[in-house]
Structures are given as C-alpha cells and as structure tokens.
C-alpha cells in the first residue's frame, strides 16, 4: 500500500464517520447510551430498589388472624412490624393451607393476608394464605414470617432452657472460629475480577456486535439502496481500499461506543467499590495488553463479517433481517462461556470462534495469564479475523453491488 492508498482509506473513513455523526440520533446511540447504561443500571437501579423497598416498609398491611387461641408473646412479635391485625375466633378444617372461601377476601383486597394457626399438643401448626403476585400481600406474608420465626427462636430457647440445657451449645454446636473473609486467600481484587469476568466479556461481545450493525448496514446496503455506491466505485480507489476505509469507520464508531461503555462500567464499579459492594479488579500490564488485543481481534472479525453480510444484501431491510438475528451467534456462545469451568479447562475451548475470546477475557480479568491458552486463542482469533476479512473482500469485489433497488 502506498501513500495515495492510505490517504484514500483515510478520506473514506473520515467521510463515513462525519456523515454518520451528523445524525443526532446516532450520537445518542453511540455516545449517550453506552456511557449511561451501566451507571444507570448499577447506581440508579439499586437506588430505585431501595426507595421502593422503603415505601413498602412504611406501608401498614392488613392481616386477619384465624385462631382459637394465640399466645400473647406471638401477638407482640407480629404487632411490632406495622401490621393491622383483625382476629377471627374460628376453627379451620385441616389442612390450614387450603384457602377455602377466603380467596375472595384476598382477591377483593379487603385483607392482604390471612394467618391461620392452631396448637395440637405441643406443636403449633400454621399457614399464611396470600397472593404471591400482589406486593402488599407478599409483604404481609414476609412480615408475619419474620415475627413468627422470632417467636419460634424464643420458644425453642425457652423449651431447651426448661429442660435444663445450655441454649447456645445446644443450638450452635458447630462454630466458625475467627473472621470468615480472612480465611479466603483470594485478594479483594481477584474476587472482583472473578465477579466482573462473569459479565464484562458478555457485555463487550454483545455491544461490539450490536453497535456495529447500524453503521455496517448504513455504509454498505444503505449506500447501495441510496444509489451512492456507483459514484464511489467509479473513483480511483480499489475495492480493498473501500473495504478498509469503511471497516476503519465502523471500527472507530464501534470502538468509541465500547470504550464509553467500559468507562461507564468502570465509573459504576468505582462507585460500588466506594460503597464496599465490589472491589476493583487487580490487572497486570500484560493482562491489560492481552485484553485489548483480544477485543481488537474480535472487533476485526465481527466488523468484517457484518460489513460482508450487509454488502451481500440488496437493501437496508434485507441487511437488517440478516444481521439482527445474527446477534444470537454472539449471545449463545457468550452465555455458554459463563458456565464453563476455567479450572482444568480443555484447550479446544480456546480454539472455538467467539467462545475463545470470551474465555480469554474471563481468564485475563481473573488475572490468569496462561501462555498455552493465549497462544491458542490468539492464533485462532487471528485466523478467524483473516477469514472474515477475506470473505468481506470477496463481497466487496462483486460486480452486482453497484446495482441498487432505487
């Protein structure tokens, strides 16, 4: 490739990026959404959950207690959790968990739950009739259970004590000595790496593929449909230069999206780390270099493949129909990769397309730099990337790409 060739590739890539970024919707899709996705997911979502939980806590739930007799201590336990109790002194036919006519009372929301309890000799039998799809009803059940389990603990202790036994040694004969977390020799960084390795590879793979779909289609089938390709093909540039230029543009746009998404992810992790929810992974310089390398190889393959498939299509609609469902080719391997055990993993996994890069990312995020695995995934990823590039070059060399539906 000479200087003219490089300047033409640069001109193609620059024009594509400029044209693509002129649409404000594109800016939202490639900058705002990737940047805000994880902070919103990791920061706003827990905040929303907390606020909803607080709202639920402050609710007073209505419970009907059906029992001929209830111990005073149990009533006190239940009453302490903001429950409006109504007592019905009725006897229930066994089993207690059979709702009977009380279904209507729950469905009409005249009560949130019904506690049935009766004593048979030394044992108390109970059932809580509720609707699991109603949040109020589930909350009422949860509060009743908490109160009743507290009462059960006290009752158990009382009975053990009445028999002249030591409550602690009887109930807790096996105990951990010292701090549980200090017995784990994995550092906080390694633990964080393991947690992140379960979803960062998935996110990177899916986002790389999905964010390249729109620009790939726009720059190939889109050009073909709009009739701009013929003018471009009559210019003094080769089809390979055209492919490289467009590949560079799609890779740049996708790269920006992925980098921004990782930035958003790191910000969210940093926020969570400050709240001690998750640590920051410890990564060596070679591991970081290899992570970048694996993503690059994956991006080369994915973008070339998407450009090729989009260029094969006669219209934007056809290209969308092919590339949209093709994301399954990434999602399924990505999900399988999550359940593959990395300890003692067989080498062939590192030669499988898509799976190899995802496994490599998992290993590297956990700080495992295994030369044998690296050699396999690097060589096979490079081969897949070259194959995809060759296929794309073949599609770009077709004569019929000049014909447009318009």
């Amino acid at each position, binding site marked *: 490739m000479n200087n*003219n060739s490089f*300047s*033409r590739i640069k*001109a*193609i890539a620059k*024009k594509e990026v*400029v*044209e693509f970024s*002129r*649409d404000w919707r594109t800016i939202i899709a490639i900058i705002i959404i990737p940047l805000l996705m994880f902070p919103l997911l990791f920061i706003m979502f827990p905040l929303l959950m907390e606020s909803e939980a607080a709202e639920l806590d402050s609710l007073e739930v209505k419970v009907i207690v059906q029992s001929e007799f209830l111990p005073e201590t149990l009533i006190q336990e239940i009453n302490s959790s903001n429950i409006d109790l109504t007592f019905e002194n009725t006897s229930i036919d066994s089993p207690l968990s059979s709702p009977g006519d009380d279904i209507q009372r729950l469905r009409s929301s005249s009560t949130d739950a019904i506690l049935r309890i009766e004593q048979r000799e030394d044992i108390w039998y109970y059932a809580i009739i509720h609707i699991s799809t109603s949040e109020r009803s589930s909350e009422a059940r949860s509060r009743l259970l908490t109160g009743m389990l507290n009462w059960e603990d006290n009752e158990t202790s009382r009975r053990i004590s009445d028999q002249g036994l030591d409550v602690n040694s009887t109930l807790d004969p096996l105990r951990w000595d010292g701090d549980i977390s200090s017995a784990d020799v994995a550092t906080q960084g390694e633990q964080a790496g393991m947690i992140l390795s379960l979803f960062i590879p998935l996110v990177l793979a899916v986002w790389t593929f999905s964010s390249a779909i729109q620009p790939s289609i726009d720059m190939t089938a889109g050009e073909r449909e*709009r*009739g*701009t*390709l*013929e*003018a*471009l*093909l*009559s*210019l*003094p*540039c080769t089809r390979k230069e055209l492919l490289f230029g467009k590949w560079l543009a799609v890779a740049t746009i996708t790269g920006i999206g992925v980098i921004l998404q990782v930035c958003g992810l790191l910000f969210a992790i940093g926020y969570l780390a400050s709240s001690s929810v998750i640590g920051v992974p410890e990564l060596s310089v070679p591991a970081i270099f290899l992570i970048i390398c694996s993503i690059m190889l994956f991006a080369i393959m994915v973008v070339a493949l998407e450009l090729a498939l989009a260029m094969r299509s*006669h219209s934007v609609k056809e290209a969308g129909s092919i590339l949209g469902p093709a994301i399954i080719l990434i999602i399924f391997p990505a999900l399988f990769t999550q359940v593959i055990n990395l300890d003692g993993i067989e080498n062939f996994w590192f030669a499988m397309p898509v799976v190899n890069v995802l496994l490599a990312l998992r290993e590297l995020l956990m700080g495992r730099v295994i030369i044998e695995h690296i050699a396999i995934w690097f060589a096979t990823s490079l081969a897949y990337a070259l194959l995809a590039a060759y296929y794309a070059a073949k599609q770009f060399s077709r*004569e*019929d790409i*000049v*014909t*447009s539906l*318009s």
Partner: protein
Amino acid sequence: MAKTLMSITNVSKNFGDIEALREVNLDIRSGEVVGLVGSNGAGKTTLLRLMSGVYAPSTGSICLEDGTPVAKMRQRLGVVPESTGLYSRLTAWENIRYHSRMHGVSDQDSWKRTSRFAEHLDMLDSLGRHTKGFSRGMKQKTALLRALAHGPSVLLLDEPTAGLDITSARTVRALVKQLRDEGGTVVYSTHQLSEAEQVCDRIIIIHNGGIQADGSPNDLLKQTQTTNLEEAYVSLTQEKARPREEDSKKDGRFTRWWRRISTPKIPKFEIKEVLESE
C-alpha cells in the same frame, strides 16, 4: 482529426447467461460530445459503467490513448451516474471535496474549479448547504460540479437531464456545450433524440446490447434515408426491444419458492365479472 482519448475494442459484457453488450467497438475522440441513445435496457448504462471502470468487460478491452486500461486511470474520468450519488448528510461542497480528495486533488484546486463552474450553474450560494433539501435539478448540478472538480479528460453523464424541469435541463445542456467549446470530451447517455440532436456532435444508437449506428446527426439521416432523427431511430431499431435485464439478479431457489407461496393468485373470476359488467 482529433486524437482518440478512449478506445473500446471488441467489448462484450455478460451477466450470467444474459448478454448485456456484444462486440462493441468505439473510439471517443478529444473535444467531442458523444450521445449514447437507446431505449431502456438497451445497454447504455452498462457501456457507461464499463467506460468508468465500475464493470470489467467479459471480453475485449477499454483503454485510454496511452494504452492504459481505464480501470487503472479513473482519475482522468468524471462520472455522473443516473442516481447522482450524493450524500444527503454532507453539504454540496463536502460531497465535491470528498471525490476530489479521492482523485488526489488538493482542496484549493478543487475549490477553484468548483467555484468557476458553480457560478455558471448558479450554485455558488448553495455549496454550503446539505444536499438533503436539494431539488432534483440542484442535485444534478452538484453531481456535475463534483465530476468536474478534478479536471477530468472525459466526462461520462448517465441521463443527466432525466427528471429535471425545463430550466434545469437547459442549464445542464448549456454546461455541456460550454465544456465542448472549451475542448472538453463528454459522453452523454439519453433516450431523448431531440436532446441528443441539440447537444451531441456524434450520436451512437444502442439497441439490444449492440451498436446500430454511429455518426453525426446528418450521417444518421443519410444512412437511413430519413428526414428526421426519430424516423432514423425507428428504422435502425426495428427489432423488438428486450426488457431491462442487467440488474435482474437471479434469485435463489428458496427465495423463488417462498415468493410463489406467499403471493396471492390473481382472482380471475372477479376480473371476468368486472369485464362482463362493463
């Protein structure tokens, strides 16, 4: 005699089983405006695409005067395809500059030439506007400016006045005449004989993939012993015109099957009833 700029020798072009062009021999000489006239599907666009290097000939060769294949010397050509091929999110000047850069021409030189022609076409004030809102005429003028910005030896125009209003079509024709007066070479495809007569020094009639006639308007009248070009055209193209086949790529077996089962049949009895009621 003017020197030959482009030689088309024994060129045929096939798309699968379809013979789009057969045994075309043609010389494009310096300073002439050559009109390619023919019906839809005759092979005009295929010939222009071969001349611009977008298609490679199945047989034969298309070379410039020094013997270089045209595909390797595309910087000497200016091409305006039928669809104009403008990017709607770029301004007119950005469209022009993009093509000039691909031709290896500096922005400064490109601007000099563009502004000169833009003034003639009354487009100077519109160069900074996005082409999305352009009328068909403005798009055509922009595409012309784009094709001229790098100073090509040969300008290839595919139906440049199709769909234009009378004023815009007149402006385009005036520009072509001006280029000829300045010594430029233009290949101009059209299916309007009157237009070819007005603009072209030489008319090539293409029919069903072959050249039926090649000469000045007067030569064609003499050859056919007719009094006007329309009669001349009719006498030269008596064989029934074939349908446009160049773009009709063969669909796969599954695609054909699926289309057949998903397309409802024409309700014949209803047509019969309608005809009877009429």
